[in-house]
């Protein structure tokens, strides 16, 4: 049997499980909120075109609209000013092989439960590697915080001084890029950066450094608690939008075993 026949057989038999890491696209799912003087991120919206009625007797279909960064979504390097001049930096030009990659899942849900502003540092990552081994080059690093289990107001967790949600500092991101050559960083929160990441040095280190180095982001993931620390394969092809800065997408994980 060929490699792929073995794989597809295992997927069908359940020996390899398919786990959906995606939130449902729902008009009520939070989006990033900016000050009123900036352009705003459009939330997911649906308008029914017909539903077996006078507008279309035998068919049901709808128009939908959203931002490239609505719901569970992919960030391409061109999303950030630091990545604007890189080659193959928009979703339509990225090598499609990049959309199938192994993942390391770093579980810091206990720490985040105690501190919504938990900051992931290079030392945290090194400590994780002591237990689980080095992060292989070309992997996704998925930052498990269980933040996806929050809903409503708790999700953005906006206070008078802005959002309070976990994220990495510049040291952690530099380590992942320079020492581990990861393909990208994935999170359960609305952005790869911490809610207070604008006050870090540099501001928004995940966006600034990852995209400046041609790496990708995955945001608003869920079900990371169903993934092993190592061994999962992530399938994450964004929509092929011309010059796209990102895209809502279905993120799947393949996991071996029961």
């Amino acid at each position: 049997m060929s490699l792929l026949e073995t794989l597809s057989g295992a997927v069908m038999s359940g020996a390899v499980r398919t786990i959906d890491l995606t939130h449902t696209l729902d008009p009520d799912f939070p989006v990033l909120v900016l000050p009123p003087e900036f352009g705003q991120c459009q939330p997911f919206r649906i308008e029914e075109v017909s539903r077996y009625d006078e507008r279309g007797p035998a068919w049901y279909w709808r128009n939908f609209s959203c931002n490239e960064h609505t719901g569970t979504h992919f960030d391409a390097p061109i999303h950030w000013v630091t990545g604007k001049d890189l080659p193959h930096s928009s979703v339509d030009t990225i090598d499609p092989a990049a959309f199938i990659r192994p993942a390391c899942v770093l579980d810091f849900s206990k720490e985040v439960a105690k501190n919504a502003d938990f900051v992931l540092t290079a030392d945290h990552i090194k400590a994780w590697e002591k237990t689980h081994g080095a992060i292989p080059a070309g992997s996704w690093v998925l930052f498990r915080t269980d933040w996806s289990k929050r809903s409503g107001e708790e999700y953005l967790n906006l206070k008078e001084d802005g959002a309070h949600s976990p994220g990495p500092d510049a040291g952690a991101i530099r380590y992942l890029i320079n020492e581990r050559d990861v393909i990208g960083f994935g999170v359960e929160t609305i952005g790869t950066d911490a809610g207070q990441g604008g006050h870090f040095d540099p501001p928004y280190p995940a966006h600034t450094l990852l995209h400046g180095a041609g790496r990708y982001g995955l945001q608003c993931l869920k079900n990371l608690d169903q993934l092993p620390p190592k061994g999962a394969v992530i399938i994450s092809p964004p929509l092929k939008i011309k010059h796209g800065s990102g895209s809502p997408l279905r993120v799947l994980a393949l996991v071996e075993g029961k």
Partner: protein
Amino acid sequence: MVEALKPPKRKNPLRYTRLPLAPPNARSRAALAFTARAAEGRLMLQQCSGCGAFAYPPRDICGACWSDELHWRDISPEGKLLAETTLHASTNVYFRERLPWRVGSVKLAAGPVVLAHLHGDMREGDDVRMIARTDKSGQGVLMALPAKETENMSDDKALRALTCDPKFRRVLVTDVRTPLGQAVVRAALTAGASKVFLGVAREWTPFAGREALYALENTEVTPLDVTDGTSVAEAASAIGGKIDILINTAQYARPGTAMARRDVVTARDEMEVNFFGAMRLLQAFGPAMRGRGADGENSAVAWVNLLSVYALSNWPAYGVNAATQAAAHSLSQSARADFAGSGVKVVNVFHGPLDDEEHQPLPPPKVTPMALASGIMTALKEGVEQSFVGDIARDIAERWREDPGLLERELTLTKNLE
């Protein structure tokens, strides 16, 4: 003395809901001109420039001297009730349901003797304060009120048929996230609303004033985002049958002309709220309200749109926004046709720039949220369908009436307005 209105009991759910009926509505074109003025609460009659006589009823040629130079003039509301008649029978189904019904002849200070509906406290020989309003068929009528305020005056059944008094009615305020929305909620409660539904969009973000607002009695939070058709439909399916007055406070205003902006993204956001939002509300809440125009003391009575006065003539400082407001205004006109004959009035309350964050750099005069909220309640209590709140709105409206072309030039060629 009029008996005080009692809080209506809960409706017997097995009872038939009366269909809204309307009094006779056929009018001449001249009489429609009277209606247009009555809709704004303006008491006007035509005056002949030839002989100075006031015409009544409205006509095309002066009854005294046959001149066709008739011009609409504001007249004094003063007069005297000459004679009254109480109708105990009528072939008209609207009045049949409301018998007995009193009408009378009033000698106006301006000259003519006119026929008018009578307030319950009016007696022959009494001094009159005359008002012009639209009735349930949307046509202009006259009503004689006591010259001085009487007890429970606004509870009179003939008067209440012309007004949209919030007393004992249930009000939906579509967006309470803003100071304006919150001021409208408080004003509605003060005006006697039995319940105010608080439309809240994006419950996943906090907003200023929320705690105090939610602590108010006789209110109920309703998730409602006018930019989301599903949300509007869900809200309507939950509370649509209970809304007697809908006040659409959802507004989105940003400065700039087309060329002052780089894209249509913000304009779309403005249209989503100001135009499509209003349209989604009409489609979801309109039909139920239209069917409840005669549903007891707390029948559905008013659909309130808040519009920038620059919907009438564009102000380039907020040029694109004014365009979306013009679209919303036009939609409100088509909504008049949707609601015609239902007993639900479409009430357009025009205002100048609000004293809020969106208009922070503008100099005064600006309309405070409280002033606008109180203007809305006044419009509802008076039963007018068009109202202008604040100095700027009144001034622009006046200039627009006099010479729309001139106003357009004044607003668009005057650089220092920007």
